C-alpha cells in the first residue's frame, strides 16, 4: 500500500542548525511517534511537512501527492494540532468554529458537535478562558471534524496532566480503528508512546537515528547492568553508551542477544524504556 506520509532526503539549513537528509514514511492505519530532545528538529520537520517553512531540498509526499504542488487538496485531508494556541483568544468556541469551518471542503458540524459534547467543552466560553487541556481538546475537535485522514500533531501532550493525556491516547487509538487513517505526532514525553505507537522515528541533532516498529526497538535493545570487570573492548563494541560508577556499570545495547551470549549470567538485562533509549543515544552523540 502507498504511504500516507513520505519524507525523502529533506534538507533545511539554518544558521547554526541543519536538518540533514531526513527520510521516513508512514503507512495508512498506524500511529507514528516522532521523538527527540528539545531542539532536535521535530518542529522544523513538521513545519516543513505543513509547508510553513520552505525546504532547501528533498521531497514530501502526503497521500502520494507533493505537499506544495497539491497543497490545498492535501491540507483538506489533514488534521493539524499545534502545541501552542493559534486561535483567536477573544472568540468563543462556537464563534471560532464558524471562522474555521468554511476553509474545509468536508467540514462536518455533526461530528464537531459530538466531540464538543464528548470532551465537555463549553461552547460559549471564550478561548482565552479555557484551560490548557480544554484548548488542546478544542484543537483536536477542529482537527477531526473535516474527515481528515492524516492527523499531524506537534507536542500534543506537553503541559497536559496524565488524565487528559490518557484520554488523548484513547482518541488516537479510536481514530485508527478505521484502517484508512494515520496519526503522526511529535513528543518528548515518551511514556505515552511506549504504549500506543506502532512506529517510532527518532531524530537527534537534525538527523534521523532510526525509524522502525516500536516493538523491534524495544526487543533488540537491552539495558544491561553488571560489574565493571567484564567490560573489555570487545564487549564495549556492542554498547550504544555505558555509565560506570564505583559499584558497576549500566549500559544500553542494541544487540541484546549478542550481549546475552557473551556475558550470560554475569549481567542483568532489562527491557529499556524509550526514555532510556533516547537518553543513551543523545548522550553518545555529545561525546
Amino acid at each position: 500500500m502507498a504511504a500516507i506520509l513520505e519524507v525523502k532526503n529533506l534538507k533545511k539549513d539554518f544558521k547554526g542548525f541543519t536538518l540533514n537528509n531526513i527520510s521516513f514514511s508512514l503507512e495508512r492505519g498506524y500511529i507514528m511517534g516522532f521523538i527527540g530532545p528539545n531542539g532536535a528538529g521535530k518542529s522544523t520537520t513538521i513545519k516543513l511537512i505543513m509547508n510553513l517553512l520552505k525546504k532547501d531540498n528533498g521531497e514530501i509526499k502526503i497521500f502520494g501527492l507533493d505537499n506544495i504542488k497539491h497543497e490545498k487538496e492535501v491540507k483538506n485531508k489533514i488534521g493539524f494540532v499545534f502545541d501552542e494556541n493559534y486561535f483567536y483568544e477573544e472568540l468563543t468556541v462556537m464563534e471560532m468554529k464558524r471562522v474555521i469551518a468554511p476553509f474545509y471542503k468536508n467540514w462536518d458540524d455533526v461530528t464537531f458537535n459530538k466531540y464538543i459534547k464528548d470532551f465537555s467543552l463549553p461552547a460559549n466560553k471564550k478561548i482565552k478562558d479555557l484551560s490548557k487541556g480544554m484548548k488542546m481538546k478544542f484543537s483536536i475537535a477542529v482537527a477531526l471534524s473535516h474527515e481528515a485522514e492524516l492527523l499531524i500533531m506537534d507536542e500534543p501532550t506537553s503541559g497536559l496532566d496524565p488524565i487528559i493525556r490518557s484520554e488523548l491516547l484513547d482518541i488516537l487509538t479510536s481514530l485508527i480503528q478505521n484502517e484508512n487513517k494515520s496519526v503522526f505526532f511529535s513528543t518528548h514525553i515518551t511514556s505515552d508512546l511506549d504504549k500506543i505507537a506502532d512506529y517510532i522515528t527518532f531524530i537527534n541533532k537534525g538527523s534521523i537515528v532510526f525509524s522502525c516498529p516500536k516493538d523491534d526497538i524495544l526487543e533488540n535493545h537491552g539495558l544491561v547492568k553488571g560489574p565493571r570487570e567484564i567490560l573489555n573492548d570487545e564487549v564495549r563494541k556492542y554498547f550504544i553508551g555505558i555509565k560506570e560508577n564505583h559499584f558497576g556499570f549500566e549500559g544500553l545495547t542494541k544487540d541484546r542477544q549478542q550481549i546475552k551470549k557473551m556475558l550470560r549470567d554475569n549481567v542483568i538485562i532489562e527491557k529499556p524504556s524509550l526514555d532510556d533509549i533516547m537518553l543513551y543515544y543523545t548522550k553518545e552523540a555529545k561525546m
Partner: protein
Amino acid sequence: MNIIISNSSDEPIYEQIVKQIKNMIIRGELAENEMLPSIRSLAKDLQISVITTKKAYEELENDGYIVTVQGKGSYVAAQNKELLKEIRLKIVEEKLAEAIEAGRSIDLSLEEMQEMLKILYEEV
C-alpha cells in the same frame, strides 16, 4: 475472554498475548469457530500498538490455532481433537508431577498421597 498484559515483564507483549490465547483454546474456554476481537480493537483495549497484536495473531495463525479470513476477521481454528486431548493430558501429568515432588520433599509415601488424592478427588 481475559487478556492480562504486564508492561514490566521481560516477556515481549505479543508473546504474552499468544500464550494466553493458546491457553484459552487448549482449556476449551475459546470454542472452535469463535470469533476473536479484531487486531485493532484488541490493540485499543489493551492500549498497545497494532503491530504488536498483529504479530500475535500471525503467530497464532502459523501455529494453527486461529484462521484469519480476509475482510472478515479471525476465528478459532478447528482443533485436532486427539491432539487437544493429548495436550490436556500432558498438563494434568505436569501438575501431578509437581504434587509428587512437593510430597516427596516432606517424605510422603505413595499410599499417603494416593489417600490424599482420593479424598480430594471426591471433594472437589
